[in-house]
C-alpha cells in the first residue's frame, strides 16, 4: 500500500464514521424497529428459559430497546432459591449504544482499500452475513446478560454463591470494549476473506483424457 492510498483510506474512514454516526443517531428509532425481530430471535436462542418481549421506548431524548422477559418455568437460582414461572425481569439497552459496533464494522469496510468497485461490492457482500453475527454477539447478548444480573443478586441476597453464567461474562466483556474487538475482528476477517477469494489462483480444468490404460 502506498502513502497516498493509506491517506485516502484514512479520510474514507473518518468520513464513513461521520456519516454513519449522524445517520445512526438521526434514524435510531427506525433502525431499532428493524433490529427488534432479530433481537427477539437471538434472545430466544440465547436464553430459552425466558420469553422475551421487546419494544422501542423513548427516554427523554434517547431511544432504548426495552426488554421484559417472563420465566417460562420455575428457574433454579441456587439449591434453595428459584424464580417462579411467570415472574418478569425488565432491562434495556440504549439504541445508539447498540449501534457502535455496527458503525465501526461498516466504517472499516467502507475505508478498506480495494482494487476496484467489483472488489468493494464483493467485500460488502461478505459483510452482510457477518454483520448479523456482529449484531448477535453485541446488542442482544448484552440484553441477555443484563437479564441475568437480578438472578445473581437474588443468589447473593440468599447468601449463596452462584457461578457467573457465560452470558453474563460475555456481557461484561462486550461492555468494556469487547464489542469493538468483535467489530474490528469481523471487519478484518471479511476483508481478508474477500481478498483471498479475489486473488485465489484460477482453477485449471484438466482436459479430458481419452487414453485408456
Amino acid at each position, binding site marked *: 500500500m502506498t502513502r497516498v492510498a493509506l491517506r485516502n483510506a484514512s479520510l474514507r474512514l473518518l468520513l464513513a*464514521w461521520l456519516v454513519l*454516526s449522524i445517520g445512526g443517531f438521526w434514524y435510531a428509532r427506525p433502525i431499532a424497529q428493524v433490529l427488534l425481530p432479530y433481537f427477539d430471535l437471538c434472545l430466544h436462542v440465547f436464553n430459552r428459559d425466558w420469553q422475551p418481549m421487546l419494544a422501542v421506548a423513548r427516554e427523554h431524548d434517547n431511544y432504548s430497546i426495552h426488554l421484559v422477559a417472563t420465566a417460562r418455568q420455575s428457574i433454579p437460582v441456587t439449591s434453595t432459591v428459584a424464580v417462579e414461572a411467570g415472574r418478569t425481569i425488565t432491562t434495556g439497552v440504549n439504541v445508539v449504544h447498540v449501534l457502535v459496533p455496527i458503525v465501526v464494522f461498516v466504517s472499516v469496510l467502507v475505508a478498506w482499500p480495494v482494487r476496484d468497485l467489483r472488489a468493494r461490492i464483493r467485500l460488502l457482500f461478505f459483510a452482510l452475513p457477518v454483520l448479523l453475527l456482529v449484531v448477535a454477539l453485541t446488542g442482544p447478548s448484552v440484553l441477555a446478560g443484563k437479564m441475568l444480573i437480578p438472578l445473581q443478586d437474588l443468589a447473593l441476597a440468599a447468601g449463596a454463591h452462584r457461578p457467573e453464567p457465560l452470558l453474563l461474562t460475555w456481557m461484561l466483556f462486550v461492555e*468494556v470494549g*469487547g464489542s*469493538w474487538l468483535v467489530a474490528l*475482528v469481523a471487519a478484518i*476477517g471479511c476483508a481478508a476473506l474477500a481478498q483471498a477469494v479475489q486473488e485465489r489462483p484460477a482453477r485449471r480444468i484438466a482436459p479430458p483424457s481419452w487414453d485408456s490404460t
Partner: protein
Amino acid sequence: MSPAMQQPPATAGSRRSLFFILGFAACYAVFHTLYFMIPDDILRERVYHDGIVAISAAIINFIAPGEAVTALANRVQSTRAALEVVRGCDGAGMLFLLWAAVLAFPASLARKAMGLVGAFLIIYMLNQARIVGLYFVVAYREPWFIPLHTFFVPSLLVILGSLFFAWWAFGSSTLSRDPSRAA
C-alpha cells in the same frame, strides 16, 4: 526454494491475516482478563484518582477556574456537575485493542515498543480530553451526555485508534521493506 515460498501470494496473505486476527483477539482477551483481576477499590482509590480524576480536575480548573472542580476518589465534581470514572470508562478497552493489534502485527521489537508507548500516550490523552469534555457536557448540556458518552465518543475513539494503528503498521511495513529508512 522453501515450501513457504512456493505458496501462492493469496494463501500466504490469508494466512498472515488469520494469524493477525487470532493474535489480536488472544492478546485482547489476556489484557481483559488481567484487567478484571485488579480489585475495584485499587482502581477507584489509586489508579482513577491519581491517574485520571485528579489530572482531569486540574485541567478543568485551568480551563475554567470558576468551575472550582474537586477530585474525590473516582469522582470529578463541582456544584454544577459530578462525573464518576468507573471500570470500562477509563480508556482501558481502547488501549487493550491497540496494544493487542501492535503485539499481533509482525514488526521489529523496537517498532512494537514504540507502538505500545505511542498507543498508551494517545489513548491516555484522548481519554483525558473525553473526561474533561464530558464534564462540561454534564454541567452545561446534560441531554447530550448519553449520545456522546455511549455512541459518538466511543466510536470516534475506535476510529482514531484504528488510524493510529494503520499508520504505525504502514511505517513498520515500510521499514521492514527498506531498513535504510530506519535512521
